[in-house]
């Protein structure tokens, strides 16, 4: 299904990014994975780059290497994110800066640099992984929600800028997924999340296939007329 497609995924070493990378590899894609740590995937078609996405210059430098080595990118999954759940008045500055740099600026830079490659083949799919936080705006996640709302808008504007290049830009907003990021929340926050999930139209956390289903849809060659869309899982709108 993804034979001869080159797919770049951020945050590929664990959680959603790992599952998505593994799925694409199973479907014969070439996968470029970015994460802060070392590779956790052993596959001949998987190429791992360890990079701190909180440092914008590193992203620019990395793309010089990616451009030389791979020549093209067909699909980008902007999945990497960092989360510090803390009330605004006591959120440490370093954590705030890291959240903006990784969750918003890195998404912008990776989308932009990937689009430069995608335009050479007049083909591309950019998919941002967002969160229900962008819609529900929970207390304790001000900056996280703002960044996720930001990447929603980012995709919508880029969809306009890149449409003539046959590059679509869409967003998948996830409720909760069993991952390290979910476990990072305090026990109080996890109780709150459970309460939110209980009140969703479909009251359960997202499963792997829920996510892969939408990614397949956005990634598909048949989805050339689907752009600037945000799909919230679980019935959030």
């Amino acid at each position: 299904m993804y034979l001869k497609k080159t797919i770049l995924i951020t945050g590929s070493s664990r959680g959603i990014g790992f599952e998505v990378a593994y799925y694409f590899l199973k479907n014969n894609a070439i996968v470029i994975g970015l994460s802060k740590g070392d590779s956790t995937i052993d596959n001949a078609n998987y190429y791992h780059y360890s990079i701190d996405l909180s440092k914008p210059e590193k992203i620019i430098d990395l793309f010089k290497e990616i451009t030389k080595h791979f020549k093209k990118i067909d699909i980008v999954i902007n999945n990497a994110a960092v989360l510090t759940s803390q009330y605004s008045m006591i959120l440490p500055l370093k954590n705030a800066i890291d959240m903006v740099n990784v969750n918003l600026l890195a998404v912008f830079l990776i989308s932009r640099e990937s689009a430069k490659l995608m335009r050479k083949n007049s083909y591309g799919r950019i998919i941002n992984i967002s969160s229900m936080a962008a819609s529900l705006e929970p207390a304790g996640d001000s900056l996280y929600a703002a960044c996720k709302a930001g990447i929603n808008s980012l995709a919508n504007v880029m969809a306009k800028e890149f449409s003539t290049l046959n590059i679509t830009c869409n967003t998948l907003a996830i409720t909760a997924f069993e991952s390290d990021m979910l476990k990072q929340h305090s026990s109080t926050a996890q109780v709150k999340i459970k309460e939110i999930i209980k009140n969703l139209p479909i009251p359960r956390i997202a499963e792997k296939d829920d996510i892969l289903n939408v990614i397949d849809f956005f990634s598909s060659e048949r989805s050339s007329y689907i752009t600037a869309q945000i799909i919230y899982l679980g019935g959030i709108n």
Partner: protein
Amino acid sequence: MNIVKVKEIVINALNNLLTEMPTEQGCEINESTLLLAEGSIIDSLTLVSLIVDIETTFNTDYNIEISLSDDRAMMRDISPFLSVSTLVDYIYELISEK
């Protein structure tokens, strides 16, 4: 690199873009071709693509890193993107400083 080569790179990049725009095929490109002015043959988004293509060509084919869209370009009294001629002059100025 001399200015004739710079002009060749810019005009090639512009011609390549125009082949992707059916309504503009057959348009003759020369130094006086307008880029970012009334009467321009391209719109602003196409100009963005032109900038990206030129930067990429210099970087990839000639190992010369240039940035055409930084503050320096934006602060000029006469925009470097006014015409092919102003763009060529600006690029030549940048690479001469290296």
